[in-house]
């Protein structure tokens, strides 16, 4: 129990963060078919802005978190308005829409990273735990409060998103746009507004992932690539077809990563930790090409 319970909470916390990141990636993909490789940068910005406000300026958490989320949203909208939409009118996009979009969003990661470096340099920034660093003692095991927080946060955010998509007009319009943009447009849905909303939501989720995970690690202007990698894998493992996919994918990835690290012995086999995790992911793709949650693969 001493190892199982903390291990479980660690897996859920890692998985929860991956789920938030994957969901942000998936929402943009569903609404616009854009493979947004800059998704991790929103998490990086969220974490660093939180550091600046919460740690440097000592602004209380309830104020610092919304501002950090807004920065993520603004960055996402800037990506859409200043880079993606201008690209849509070019010959490059007409000739090779997927490749040009990947190239563009990949380039955006360097732009966001560069902007962050202007403000924060290349240094790493620690964010203190939101509820203190002393562990909670549950059934004889030490549980890190931040892990519990991430778990609760993930659950609440996902519930709200589910309610949004199922029970609000805007959410249904977004689902319709994801299903068929042309038909949605013909039915009077302003798909441009929907795409703007998708990017905003994605920016917020990315920033939230960075904010939640920042106290477990250290943030730097180069953190975005790590967040992107985890988010993309979560989204692909779970499946891009529906909103449950990234959640399932994130939790599965977190669980596999923790179990592999706990069980693998030292030595040559230990060096294969990530290879085993991603070998498992590859097998999963072969068995279920549409991801764990099924649906359209996109």
């Amino acid at each position, binding site marked *: 129990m*001493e190892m199982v319970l903390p291990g479980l909470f660690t897996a859920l916390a890692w998985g929860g963060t991956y789920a938030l990141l994957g969901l942000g990636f998936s929402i943009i993909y569903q609404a616009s078919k854009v493979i947004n490789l800059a998704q991790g940068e929103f998490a990086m910005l969220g974490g660093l802005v939180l550091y600046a406000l919460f740690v440097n300026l000592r602004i209380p958490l309830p104020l610092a978190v919304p501002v950090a989320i807004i920065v993520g949203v603004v960055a996402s909208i800037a990506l859409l308005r200043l880079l993606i939409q201008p690209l849509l009118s070019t010959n490059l996009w007409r000739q090779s829409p997927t490749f040009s979009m990947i190239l563009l969003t990949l380039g955006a990661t360097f732009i966001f990273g560069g902007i962050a470096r202007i403000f924060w340099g290349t240094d*790493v920034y*620690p964010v203190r735990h939101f509820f203190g660093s002393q562990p909670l003692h549950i059934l004889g095991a*030490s549980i890190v409060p931040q892990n519990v927080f991430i778990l609760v946060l993930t659950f609440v955010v996902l519930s709200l998103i589910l309610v949004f998509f199922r029970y609000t007009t805007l959410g249904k319009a977004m689902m319709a746009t994801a299903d068929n943009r042309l038909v949605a447009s013909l039915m009077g849905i302003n798909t441009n507004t929907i795409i703007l909303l998708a990017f905003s939501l994605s920016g917020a989720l990315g920033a939230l992932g960075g904010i939640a995970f920042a106290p477990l*690690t*250290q943030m*730097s202007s180069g953190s975005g690539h*790590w967040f992107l990698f985890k988010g993309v894998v979560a989204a692909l493992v779970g499946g891009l077809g529906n909103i449950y996919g990234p959640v399932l994918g994130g939790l599965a990835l977190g669980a596999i990563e923790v179990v592999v690290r706990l069980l*693998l012995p030292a030595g040559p086999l230990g060096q294969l930790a990530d290879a085993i995790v991603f070998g498992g992911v590859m097998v999963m793709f072969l068995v279920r090409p549409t991801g764990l949650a099924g649906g359209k693969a996109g």
Partner: protein
Amino acid sequence: MSHHKGSTVFWLLAVVMVVALVLMPLTACGKGTPKATTEPIRVGVLFSATGSYAQFGEWGRKAVLFAIDEVNAEGGIKGRPIKAFIYDDESKPDLSTSLTKKLIQQDQVVAIIGPASALVHAGVAAVANDLKVPVVAVNGGFVTVIRKELWPYNFTSWYDGNNIGLGLLQYFRSKGVTRFAAFCMTGFESIVDNLKAMGKAMGMELTIAAFQPATDVDATPSILKIKATNPEMIINIVTGPLSIAFFNGTEQQGLKVPIGVMGANVTPQAFKGVDPALTGRMFEVQGRGLDYKGLKDDDPFKPFLTQLNATYRARTGANMNYYEAVAYDAALPVITALKAVGPDPQKIRDHIEKGQKNLMGASGFYWNKSPEDHQGGNLIDTVATLWDVKAGSFKFITYMTDIRAQLKSQGIPIIESLEAFSGAK
């Protein structure tokens, strides 16, 4: 007679021509002499300004340029200033390869100082060796990463990490510790193998070595594994965000045992984010420069480091951190060689390897490089220190000489160094 006269004229002309031919280059040389003596000596300064090692590169460049400025402020070397050709390797080994070629072939530098990491040095080493220009890197993994056949023109100013681990084991063994664990990045298994073997020779048991990829950001799985084996202390062989996550994680998981810290965690910045609750249980063994203020008054390094740090502070506006001290020690052998043998790459290399004895370094080592040892420090020069999280500084505890005296009195075998120990891999 006329024939004789003609012959004399011929010989006179011949002598004049020979003398003129001999003197011509000398005269030309004489005309150029003032220019040649003031011509700058070209030295490459290769550090990362961007990428993963940017912070280390920034410190390294700052300290090396300080060392060069010091020489130039004193009038240069025999009237010739040192001109630094500075490049950013972007933390990329492939780029460092092309920049090394550029430094040597285009800029015609006589030596290169840097880069700031073993990984980037790996991109430099072969080119420097092929083109026969000495490199003194700030590379902690020199023995592990740089193949021995590339050593001739490659040096480092970092003391070997394996021996730092040995120093930590000796310190903790002198305190009665017999069970230790290790937390390590995957790929550094050989260091753990060496620690295990050397610890065993001193009556210490490695309870577990927990490995995680350096790209991980949370060390909880390793902490849980280590905690289950109930060690009396842990040696940390990880740097970067994962190490901070590990330190703080031990507190959160109730694994409150001393931690011996290895690797590049030698600056206050490297410990940024460490929970103040860890004060009193984080230890380092490094050169005397880690806390020169705490050294004994009769230690010759104390006045040397006090003076050097005062100059550094006056010129740069900040204290010299330990990484900067190690980088300064990379510039030191190059400058010493330039003063002794002039700007000839081959002579500089030979002087660094064989001609510099007990070179006092900013990191607190007496440097004695040799054909067999291109690092050059000695474990006996190290001190044990405590990282005071609250104060943000290292606190001197004791000298390695005193640690060994204590071990000797306890009847515990003394291992001089990894090189002298036959049981290690």
